């Protein structure tokens, strides 16, 4: 049975991710960077569902990640809930806020929706920065605990260790990736895709445009919430600057870099954006200038990102016809 290229790539990436602790066991810095990259991969998957498949641009998504982050942090730190319920709490909080924001805002046309997401992100940032009693204000919340250890027989998974937390983040990222797969490779994904391609046509063929957009938006914000939670658990501290407009824009850029609309796009984008500069070891500004140029080149010549360019190259090499995702 011949597997499509995308499946092969996915398996390779998953295998690499699963084996990373063994490959890089002696190099904690690499594992650290990979963990951080995974913490961005998760919200990037959320944005992929929203933008890559449904075609909606959100420039405020890290605000929702922040909602998930602070909620989970507070549940674990102040309320003392264990990890899993706290994570779900963060996810629901972010998703619910997405629901509240989505209902009035998703009816807007594309230009206006983009601006609204910017504004929502800014408002959330202001709230994170100023609700000192709840969020610790500009200083943030330090001292966020790691999840408790898991003991299976004599085997202990210690999440306070880098390796342990990497494994946890990888598992959660893989689950979210699996969720993306189920949603996207189904009729639901095809309906979302039809919204991106031609909304009027989709409506005329029976797609509840608003309902689907809302579902996609809520899913994407809930997933962003999970990503935000993992990030602050990893860094053991939550701060507003982690979730400001620059972060939101970086998130979109990661996805575009990797390839929006591809299952592995967010993974490749996040790893490239986060990990590559760390390994290149140049001054922070130079990396960002470099990325600015990468974006300009992408926008002009490769709007479908790394995955898109790879697909084009693959097709040319193997002389295949246009590779269209088959749903049946």
């Amino acid at each position, binding site marked *: 049975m011949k597997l499509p290229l995308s499946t092969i790539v996915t398996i390779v990436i998953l295998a690499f991710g699963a084996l990373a602790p063994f490959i890089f066991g002696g190099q904690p810095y690499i594992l650290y960077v990979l963990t951080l990259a995974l913490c961005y991969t998760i919200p990037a998957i959320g944005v992929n569902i929203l933008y890559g498949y449904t075609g909606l641009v959100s420039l405020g998504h890290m605000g929702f990640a922040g909602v998930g982050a602070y909620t989970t942090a507070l549940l674990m730190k102040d309320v003392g809930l264990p990890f899993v319920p706290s994570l779900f709490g963060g996810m629901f909080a972010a998703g619910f806020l997405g629901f509240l924001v989505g209902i009035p805002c998703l009816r807007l046309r594309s230009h206006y929706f983009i601006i609204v997401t910017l504004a929502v992100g800014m408002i959330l940032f202001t709230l994170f920065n100023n609700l000192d009693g709840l969020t610790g204000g500009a200083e943030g919340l330090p001292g966020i605990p790691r999840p408790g250890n898991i003991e299976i027989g004599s085997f202990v998974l210690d999440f306070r260790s880098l390796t342990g937390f990497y494994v946890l983040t990888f598992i959660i990222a893989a689950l979210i990736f699996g969720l993306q797969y189920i949603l996207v490779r189904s009729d639901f994904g095809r309906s979302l895709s*039809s919204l991106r391609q031609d909304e009027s046509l989709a409506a*005329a063929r029976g*797609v509840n*445009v608003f309902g689907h957009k809302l579902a996609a938006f809520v899913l994407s914000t809930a997933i962003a919430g999970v990503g935000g939670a993992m990030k602050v658990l990893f860094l053991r501290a939550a701060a507003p600057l982690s979730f400001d407009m620059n972060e939101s824009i970086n998130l979109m850029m990661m996805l575009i870099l990797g390839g929006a609309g591809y299952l592995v796009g967010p993974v490749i984008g996040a790893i490239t954006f986060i990990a590559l500069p760390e390994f290149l070891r140049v001054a922070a500004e130079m990396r960002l200038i470099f990325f600015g140029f990468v974006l300009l080149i992408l926008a002009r010549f490769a709007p479908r990102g790394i995955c898109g360019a790879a697909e084009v190259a693959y097709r040319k090499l193997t002389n295949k016809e246009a590779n*269209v995702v088959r749903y049946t």
Partner: protein
Amino acid sequence: MSAILEVSDISKSYGGIQAVNGASFTLDHPGIYGLIGPNGAGKTTMFDIICGRQVPDAGKVLFHSSRVDGVEPYKLARQGLARTFQECRVLPEETCLDNVLFAAQSKRMTSEMLQVFTRNTKHRRDAEVEARRLLRLINLEQYADQPASDLSYGQRRLLEIVSCFMSKPRILLLDEPASGINPTLLNTLRDFLVELYEETKIVFLIVEHNMEFIMSLASTIIVMHQGRVLMQGAPEQVQADESVIDAYLG
């Protein structure tokens, strides 16, 4: 027996222009109906209102006795109202086969989301067989696995129309299907529409500017002028009617 489509006293204006002004007509039985009229007659607005894209200021539209004016297009689609677009819309990134299949997929979100687990059921295999048959009808079966954007305009028009039939509609509304089609293909288009009608025996309501095309295709013509329905009758009657001739020339 109740009428299939009943349009009663529809009025619609925007910005001071009265586009439709108390128009009424009834489609009693299956057939191919043409909706014609000079520019500004209100037929496009009327079409949009029936399709749910615009809400009338007054009046009502009944489809099999239930009100459909002001109902959102996607709900009408689920009730069996299918339509094509003047500018010919297909999903450009999907294959021709998927374009046809899309019309049939359940659009209810939960069943959609779980579909990845129900991929190979008999229901879906039957759907694929039917979709290929429809593609064969328009001689596009060889393009089944190619993106719709690869097709020529005429081919896309046929694809658009045939996709509607996957969902077994009860009425098909066509918005200027002949526009942009070069004359040699018009006969093919006409024959195709006739063939589809014979197979399904539903109501086709076609808004058209191309007189020769619509007169040779429709069994009943409805003429609109200045927002009202001027007359409804067989093509020969309509072509001979003085008030219709005046409307076009005056």
